[in-house]
C-alpha cells in the first residue's frame, strides 16, 4: 500500500485487477453479477455453443423485471415472446444453479432495487449487469456499471470483464437542497449543466454536503442517472448511513464478518489531495425542482424556467430542432402549465419507498385530475409491502390512484405499459428519448413530487405550491 493519496474509485478498482494487459484493458474481477430476462438469453446460448459453463454460479443473481406485466402477475404472461424470455431465464438459471427470483417470487422486483434491499450489493464491490442503470449500486461505494450481452457471457464464463480504466470525475454539491427539491432534481440539474455526454469516458464520484446528507434511496437515484450524463458509473463513499441500511439485510455479512467488513468499508473514501481528471462544483441553492422538455436527459431545466433558445443549449441546432419538434414544444415557452396526459411513478430511478412517500405527501387529501392516467409501479414486492404497511396505499387510493405490481414497466415500455403516440407523460424514470415510453410518446422527466403535482392538476405544476 503506497501513501499516495488515492480516490475511492482507484481503491476499489485496483483491488479487483487480476491482470493488466499492456496497451489493453484491465482484467477486472467481478464480485456480483445481476442478470435479467432480456439481455441474458443470448449470453447463455454463447456458453452452450462454446461448450463452457458458468465459472462461479453463486456470484450471479437473476430477477425478471424488464419484460414483465405489472397487472395480474398470477396469470400466464400473454405475450408469447415475453413468456419465452422469462422461460429462458428460468431454464438457464436452473441449468447452471443460479439464484432466480422470477415473476411471482416474493423477492422479485427491478434488479437495481432488489440487489440493495437484500444486501447483495455491498461497499467496495465490483458489480455488473446487462443494464446501463447498474450504476445505481454505486450509491453503496461499489464500482457498478452496465455491460452488453457479450460481456454478460464473459462474466458468466470467467467472473471477469476486460475494461480499460476510465478517467475520474468528481461532482461536488455543497449547501442544502431547498424545500421540494429532491435527489432526482439534483441529478437532473447536473445533467442539464454538463449535457447527456458530459461525463462520457469518466467514472464519477459524488461528494459534498448534499450527497452526505442524502438517504441511501436518494443516493441510488443519483448514481442511477450517472449513465444519463454519459458516465460509466457513479459512486458515493460509504458512511454510517450506508452501514445502517445494510446491517441485518438478508445477504449482508453477519457477526464477525460484518465487523471486519465495516472496518474495511470505513477506509473506502477519497484521500485528501487525491487527483481527479475533471471536477465540477455546484451550489445546492441554485437547484430548483427540475423537468426535461427535450429528447435527451440533458435537455432539462428548472421548472419555473422557459424552454431555452437553440443558442443557449449544448446540443447542435439541427438535433435541438428535431427534439423540440418531436415534443411539440417551441423555444422560449413556459413549461409550467403545459397540459399532460400520463404520470408514471416507478423505475430503478424512483421506484423505492421514499419516492412513494414523497408522491403521497402531495396527493394526500387531494384528487387525481380526471384527464390524467397514472401508473404507480413499486420497484419490488418489498417496496409494495412497505407501501401498504405505512398506510401510503390508503392515501393513494383515497386520492383516486391504483398501485400496479413491480417491474420496469413504462420506463422502457417493453411490456404493455406504453404511453400512446403524441401523449405527454411526466415520468420519474430516467430517459426521455424518442419513443422510449412507447412509439411517439413524449416524456418529461421529473421527481416524484413534480409527478404528483402534475397528477393532481393535469399540467406541469411547481410542487412547492403543495408543500
Amino acid at each position, binding site marked *: 500500500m503506497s501513501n499516495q493519496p488515492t480516490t475511492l474509485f482507484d481503491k476499489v478498482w485496483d483491488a479487483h485487477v487480476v491482470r493488466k494487459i499492456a*496497451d489493453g484493458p484491465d482484467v477486472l474481477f467481478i464480485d456480483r453479477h445481476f442478470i435479467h430476462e*432480456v439481455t441474458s438469453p443470448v449470453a447463455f446460448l454463447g456458453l452452450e455453443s462454446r461448450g463452457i459453463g458458468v465459472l462461479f454460479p453463486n456470484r450471479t443473481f437473476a430477477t425478471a423485471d424488464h419484460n414483465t406485466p405489472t397487472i395480474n402477475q398470477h396469470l400466464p404472461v400473454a405475450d408469447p415472446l415475453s413468456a419465452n424470455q422469462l422461460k429462458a431465464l428460468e431454464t438457464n438459471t436452473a441449468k447452471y444453479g443460479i439464484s432466480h427470483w422470477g415473476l411471482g417470487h416474493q423477492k422479485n422486483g427491478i434488479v437495481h432495487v432488489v440487489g440493495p434491499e437484500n444486501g447483495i450489493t455491498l461497499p467496495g464491490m465490483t458489480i455488473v449487469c446487462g443494464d446501463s442503470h447498474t450504476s445505481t449500486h454505486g450509491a453503496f461505494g461499489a464500482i457498478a456499471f452496465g*455491460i452488453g450481452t*457479450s460481456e454478460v457471457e464473459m462474466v458468466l464464463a470467467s*467472473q471477469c470483464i476486460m475494461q480499460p480504466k476510465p478517467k475520474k470525475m468528481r461532482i461536488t454539491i455543497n449547501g442544502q437542497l431547498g424545500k421540494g427539491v429532491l435527489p432526482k432534481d439534483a441529478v437532473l440539474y447536473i445533467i442539464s449543466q454538463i449535457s447527456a*455526454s458530459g461525463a462520457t469516458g469518466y467514472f464519477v464520484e459524488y461528494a459534498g454536503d448534499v450527497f452526505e446528507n442524502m438517504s441511501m434511496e436518494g443516493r441510488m437515484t443519483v448514481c442511477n442517472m450517472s*449513465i444519463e450524463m454519459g458516465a460509466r458509473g457513479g459512486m458515493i463513499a460509504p458512511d454510517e448511513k450506508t452501514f445502517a441500511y445494510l446491517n441485518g439485510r438478508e445477504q449482508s455479512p453477519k457477526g464477525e464478518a460484518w465487523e471486519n467488513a465495516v472496518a474495511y468499508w470505513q477506509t473506502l473514501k477519497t484521500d485528501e489531495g487525491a487527483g481527479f481528471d475533471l471536477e465540477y462544483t455546484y451550489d445546492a441553492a441554485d437547484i430548483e425542482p427540475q423537468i426535461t422538455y427535450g429528447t435527451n436527459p440533458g435537455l432539462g431545466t428548472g421548472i419555473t424556467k422557459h424552454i431555452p433558445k437553440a443558442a443557449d443549449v449544448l446540443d447542435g441546432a439541427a438535433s435541438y430542432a428535431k427534439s423540440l419538434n418531436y415534443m411539440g414544444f417551441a423555444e422560449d415557452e413556459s413549461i409550467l402549465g403545459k397540459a399532460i396526459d400520463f404520470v408514471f411513478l416507478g423505475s430503478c430511478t424512483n421506484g423505492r419507498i421514499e419516492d412513494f412517500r414523497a408522491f403521497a405527501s402531495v396527493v394526500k387529501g387531494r384528487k387525481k385530475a380526471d384527464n390524467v392516467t397514472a401508473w404507480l409501479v413499486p420497484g419490488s414486492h418489498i417496496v409494495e409491502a412497505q407501501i401498504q404497511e405505512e398506510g401510503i396505499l390508503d392515501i393513494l387510493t383515497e386520492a383516486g390512484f391504483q398501485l400496479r405490481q413491480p417491474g420496469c414497466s413504462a420506463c*422502457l415500455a417493453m411490456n404493455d405499459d406504453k404511453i400512446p403516440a403524441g401523449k405527454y407523460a411526466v415520468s420519474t424514470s430516467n430517459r426521455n428519448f424518442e419513443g*422510449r415510453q412507447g412509439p411517439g410518446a413524449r416524456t418529461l422527466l421529473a421527481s416524484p413530487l413534480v409527478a404528483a403535482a402534475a397528477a393532481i392538476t393535469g399540467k406541469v405544476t411547481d410542487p412547492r405550491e403543495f408543500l
Partner: protein
Amino acid sequence: MLDVKGSEVEKLIADSRQPITDSPQKMAYDKFTILTSSAVPLPLENVDTDQIIPARFLKATERKGFGDNLFRDWRYNGDDTPKADFVLNNPLYSGKILVGGRNFGSGSSREHAAWAIYDYGFRCVVSSFFADIFKNNAINVGILPVTVSPEFLDKIFQAIEKDANAELTVNLPEQTITIVATGESESFDINGYKKHNLINGYDDIDYLQAMKEEIGAFEAARPY
C-alpha cells in the same frame, strides 16, 4: 471486406489463439482489416440505442434478424410503410460504413443495437464521439467504431453530400481513415489488444478461458 489474408500485416500480429470464426461459436464475426466502402450519413447528435433498436424489439432469445428493425421508428411509419425521408430508405445511399453525429450510441447498454447495425450490413461506425458502452459492444460483435475529429467528421459529411457514392477507406492495421476522392486522412485510436482481436477475429472469452487458474486463485481470496 478486403481480404488481406497472408499479408505482412497479418503475419506480424497473428499468434497461437484461434479466431472464433474457426469455432462452432454462433456469434462469430468477420475479421476486420481494411475496408473501402461508400457510407450512409446520419448527421444527428445523440443517436441513442432506443432509436437504433426500440425496446419492443428486444424480445428475441436468439441473435438474428435485428437488422430488419434497425432505426425502426425513424425508418417506418406506424403502418410499417417506409418513411421516404429517412436515409436508409434513400436508394442513393448504401455501404458498409455508417457515419453518425457526436455522442453516437448513448443510453441503454442493449447489445441488440450493435447486433442490428451488424446484421443490417454495417461493419464500421464513424463519429466524433461514442458512448462508452456502445463502443465496447460494437467491438465485441466485430464492428469497428472509428472516432474522428469534429472537423474530419464534417469533411466526411461534405464528401458524401457532394457525391453519395463517395468512398472511405478504414485501415485498421494502420489506424487511418481516408476520404478516397480527396485523399484526406486522419488517424484514429484503438488499444492494441482490441485491434489485435478485431484483425484476427478473436474475442475476450478465449483470452479469459486461458486465465481460469489465476482467476480461481483471485476469487478464493475475495472476502465476499
